[in-house]
């Protein structure tokens, strides 16, 4: 008693029984293939048990909030692409809807339904990546290959609509730049008819798979209370048992006209998150079917509209720009960023693929936002990561990370 014994080993002089002696510091990331993005975690491990974790973020910070302060509205859309690049259309359309709400543009029914289709496709694409990557991280590559084929099909649909695949810049403020082509409708119908079989097959591979269940059940769990305190939203919060969904709480784009369920889990662990995402894909499919039916049921002029009549903000058709004076003027005004916004502020949010994606826009009446803040869901819930993995194995940390659906672009803005 009283005397601290110490053992001298090399240059390290540690008191007897200190924690440092037992643990190893391990850098997980920032470019480890198992982390699916630029994530660094400084882990203290004792054997394979994680004792503490310190996540570092900001490796691909691109200062979008600053850049947005000098961009005209239509140039901010490509910035939002690069937040959650697994579901870029959701980000794009969320931004368009924020501006529309702010300046008071009413979008016609058909454009809203078309948006719903695109947004649900994006949600499916995002969940495909997340769920199949969970499979890969638990050692099952097959499901990934089955599902990627249909993400590819969704990307082809984007391509038909806006010309690009990953960073889509889809739609315009006020609607879509052009009507969906025949090929786009065909591909949407193809997805709606073929995807259920593949999704069933995928679920057969995983949902009652003993190995997958052992790897994911009880791993990375969080209680509803803690999840709320950490600001979880989206599938991660619903997996913990809270049925919060922005599509229901604050319906946008006429989501209130659709019938769908909000799947919830109970334990908030990796398995529940997987299940919630799986069920959400079924709900998204059903929403797309309903939207297709609603578009078919439209009659008269309504059945052809794909954008709002908002000349100050909606870019006119190119052929009108060449032939009509007024269209030319508005085209010039919009492209040169000479459209002024009203003074005020708005917080608008949509249900992104991984949580509540919010846009806080402060305008001083200028031509670009005075301040634009993105509420990025995964930046907020990634804080809980140390709490989720401490006490578990390293391999559990990997599967927890992939089940959280972290997107580096969104995390670092």
């Amino acid at each position, binding site marked *: 008693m009283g005397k601290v014994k110490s053992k001298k080993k090399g240059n390290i002089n540690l008191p007897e029984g200190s924690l440092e002696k037992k643990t190893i510091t391990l850098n997980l990331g920032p470019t480890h293939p198992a982390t699916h993005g630029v994530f660094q975690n400084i882990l203290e491990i004792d054997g394979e048990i994680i004792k503490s974790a310190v996540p570092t*973020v*900001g490796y691909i*910070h691109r*200062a979008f*909030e*600053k*850049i947005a*302060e*000098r961009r005209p509205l239509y140039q901010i859309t490509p910035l939002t692409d690069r937040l959650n690049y697994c579901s870029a259309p959701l980000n794009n359309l969320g931004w368009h809807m924020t501006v529309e*709400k*702010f300046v008071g543009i009413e979008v016609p029914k058909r454009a809203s339904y078309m948006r719903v289709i695109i947004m649900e496709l994006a949600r499916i694409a995002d969940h495909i990546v997340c769920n199949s990557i969970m499979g890969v991280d638990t050692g099952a590559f097959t499901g990934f290959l089955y599902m990627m084929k249909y993400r590819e099909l969704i990307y082809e649909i984007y391509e038909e609509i806006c010309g690009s695949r990953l960073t889509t810049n889809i739609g315009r403020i006020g609607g879509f730049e052009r009507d969906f082509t025949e090929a786009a409708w065909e591909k949407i119908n193809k997805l709606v008819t073929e995807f259920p079989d593949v999704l069933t097959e995928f679920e057969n591979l995983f949902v009652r798979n003993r190995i997958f269940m052992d790897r994911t059940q009880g791993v990375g769990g969080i209680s509803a209370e*803690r999840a*709320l*305190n*950490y*600001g979880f939203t989206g599938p991660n919060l619903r997996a913990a048992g*809270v049925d*919060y969904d922005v599509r229901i*709480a*604050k319906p946008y784009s006429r989501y209130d006209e659709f019938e769908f369920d909000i799947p919830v889990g109970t334990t908030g662990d990796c398995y529940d998150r997987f299940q919630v995402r799986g069920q959400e894909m079924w709900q998204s499919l059903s929403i797309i079917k309903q939207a297709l039916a609603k578009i078919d049921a439209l009659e008269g002029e309504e059945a052809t509209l794909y954008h709002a009549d908002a000349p100050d903000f909606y870019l006119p058709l190119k052929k009108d720009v060449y032939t009509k004076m007024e269209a030319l003027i508005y085209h010039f005004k919009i492209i040169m*960023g000479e459209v*002024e916004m009203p003074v*005020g*502020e*708005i*917080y*608008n*949010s949509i249900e992104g693929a991984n949580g*509540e994606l*919010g846009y*806080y826009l*402060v305008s*001083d*009446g*200028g*031509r*670009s936002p*005075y*301040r634009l*803040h993105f*509420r990025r869901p995964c*930046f*907020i819930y*990634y*804080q*809980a990561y140390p709490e989720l993995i401490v006490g578990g194995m390293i391999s559990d940390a990997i599967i927890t990370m992939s089940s959280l659906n972290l997107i580096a672009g969104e995390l*670092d*803005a």
Partner: protein
Amino acid sequence: MDNTNLQERLVQKFGEQIFGFEENFGILKLYADKNINLKIMQFLYDEEDLAFRFLTDLTAVHYPNQEGAELEVTYLMYNMYRNQHIRLNFGLDINQPDIFTATKLFETSNWLERECYDFYGVNFVGHPNLIRVMNVDEMDYHPLRKEFPLEDQTRRDKDDEMFGRGGDFSYGNMNIKG
């Protein structure tokens, strides 16, 4: 409880200390003295009929022309059951941007406060780990403040006046220590 009742309830409790009520797209916004930010948040959290127990968002805005309240820290709290938001704004002097941390109440605010510190230099008193979250630690300025220009200063077409608001910001020097 609608926004009018909410406002009455808060005025009853805090009286003169809160002011500047306005409603933006259904969200009640108010300003308050920065020293009572935790008191207001705790009150909104604890009271059974208010129960704002979810911190949706936290950020700051820089208004260089507001003497003594150049930085505005803004909290967006949410009640999930009633589906109601409330926005709390606190003006801070840019020379001494101190405000109490909300990390004891919401784990959410940990990184969001670090982000505010990183971008605007808001000093959250009592924060467990107030270091930069996005930028490098060596940075000695706060990049989202309005004194930092975004574009090449020789380009006239990117001046602020071209964006509808006279270009009279003072441009500071940007230095990153080696």
